């Protein structure tokens, strides 16, 4: 068994694989000590190797992981496991949005990642849902009920929040604001997708892919199929585990990469 641990900014995901098959996974809040939380989540597993990815990967390496890969490589491997021919991946996590382009063999050709800023990320949606008084789990469902005749124009989380407050104080229906917030996130994603280019389908991973409005609105704005793995947020952990497995298999053959 090889385990992949994705220590993200909001949640930790662990995935266990055997012979290229996903045998178990867990998702939990990151908490204050992400490496301790990860260890707790892996209790009962007996991995031959642990590969860490995500924001806390280096912390994990100091404590328990055998090796690290970046979220970009991990999501590429994880997405290919679910959709073996995919060439484009959008991963929207807590603090980063990434768009990854792969070649036909799954190698990372190019990627885009937001600069220092929480606009268009999961964290942005979280702040906005709190500001509108929604539970995060219902935010997307409620947004789908809204009309789409208003826009949040600011790219900055702080200013966007002021826009939301002013809309609230104009008596704009809550669901309409919720929808506008989602549209602003999709616009950011779209800009990155267009810049990097996309092929026949786009795989949507990360916690934000659980949000029905995000998936639905992205699908409306793009002319190719949006594919969402189930569950979408373990793609990174799974990819890390798969990387660890191929490494172990490859090692005796003398491949050092």
């Amino acid at each position: 068994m090889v385990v992949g641990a994705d220590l993200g900014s909001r949640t930790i995901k662990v995935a266990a694989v055997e012979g290229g098959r996903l045998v178990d996974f867990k998702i939990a809040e990151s908490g204050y000590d992400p490496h301790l939380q990860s260890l707790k989540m892996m209790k009962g597993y007996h991995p031959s190797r642990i590969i860490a990815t995500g924001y806390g990967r280096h912390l994990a390496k100091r404590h328990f992981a055998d090796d690290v890969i970046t979220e970009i490589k991990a999501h590429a491997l994880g997405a290919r496991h679910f959709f073996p021919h995919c060439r484009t991946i959008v991963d929207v996590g807590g603090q980063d949005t990434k768009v990854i382009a792969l070649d036909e063999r799954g190698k990372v050709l190019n990627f885009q990642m937001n600069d220092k800023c929480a606009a268009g990320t999961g964290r942005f949606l979280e702040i906005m849902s709190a500001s509108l008084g929604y539970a995060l789990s219902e935010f997307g469902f409620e947004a789908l009920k809204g009309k789409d005749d208003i826009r949040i124009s600011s790219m900055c989380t702080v200013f966007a929040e002021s826009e939301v407050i002013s809309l609230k104080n104009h008596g704009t229906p809550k669901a309409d604001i919720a929808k506008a917030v989602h549209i602003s996130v999709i616009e950011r994603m779209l800009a990155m997708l267009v810049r990097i280019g996309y092929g026949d389908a786009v795989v949507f991973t990360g916690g934000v892919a659980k949000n029905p409005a995000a998936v639905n609105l992205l699908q409306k704005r793009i002319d190719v199929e949006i594919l969402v793995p189930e569950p979408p947020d373990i793609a990174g952990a799974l990819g890390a585990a798969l990387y660890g497995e191929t490494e172990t298999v490859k090692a005796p053959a003398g491949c050092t990469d």
Partner: protein
Amino acid sequence: MSGKDYTEMWKGLGLNLENHAGLLGVLSKTYKDIYLNQKNRPRAMDYFDFVISEVHGLRIEEILNAKKTGRKVVGAFCVYVPEEIVLAADGVCRCGCAGAEVGSDQAEKFIPRNTCALIKAFMGFKLSGLCPYVESTDLIVGETTCDGKKKAYESLNDITGKVYVMEIPHMKTAEDRKLWLSEVKRFRDRMEELSGKKITVEALKKAAGVVNAKRKALQRLSRLRAAAPAPISGLDALLVNQVSFYDDPLRFTEMTNRLCDELEERVARKNGMAEKGAPRILISGSPMAIPNWKLHAIVEGSGAVAVGEESCIGERNHRDLLDESFSSMDEAMDKLASRYLGIDCACFTPNNERFDNIKTLTKSLKADGVIHYALQFCTPYMMEAYRAEKAVAGTPFLRIETDYSMEDFGQLQTRVEAFLEQIKG
């Protein structure tokens, strides 16, 4: 940081002693973590370590001693300011502090929040009384490279009363050249007035020799970095380039050549600084003023080696020599104008020379990837990043916008590591 007590000197310059001690403490710790922890450094880096440990100490003392003998001190923030003219008037030329997030709250009383980190820093250093260089200058020479600097100099002049601005044209037509030539002459006259000394052809010739020797030493360092494995870390080479803006030029040239002698031996023995197969990265874009070591620290901490800086603190500063074959004042001014107008700053349009230079450097330094570095709100470089990427199409390219703060360290680390994964395949 250093052994000697400079408190009286700093007090005399009007520095904020408590905050200044704090600044030096942070600098000293950062330097230790980033620089002194590197393995297998060239021995000749000892000198540059010493310069950093005395950057606000011994060097300032030297400058103040030079002032006592009647020499004038000129501060600048740009590679367009012709150092030869300052030296020919027996002046001392060096850069002001602009490489750390200092006094932003003070700076924002004069300039907007969304101003680039470098401008904010020189305003912040001055306003919080932390830059002994600015305090010891007789003249601060500004220039009209970008809107941010141009406007900030107006406020800096309100505060210090010492700012003189050179007009840099933004195109390179014959008319622009005429304007620039007159600006070079106007600066010569200003320096004569300031120093009370007549600038002669002989003095300019001597100055040209000194500055060209410095450029040649830096060029030599650049060429040595093309060796595989690279004989020196990008961090160390960046430091040498940064120090070139502060140090006494003669001593700097001697010490840099001494470093290069050692690097030549290393190249002959294939003694590399980085591990074998470490990806070689060219860094291109906005200047990295001392102590801005953030991107190099991330790149080299992730197992790659920075082999060049296509930057003002780097190639743009030393790529071109001044043609010393002048025998009259007019000829000297003409050659100076040509030398400095050749600089490929992003404030020019069009600026195709820069893209050619990036292409040439990528090839000559055998770079596996290019990281384009723009300070946030440094519009000219942010804009040129897109054309730079096209210029080296086929070479992995990563575009970064950041500032001096550490809050995006983790994100940058992820992007740089993923970029290196992409290069390694």
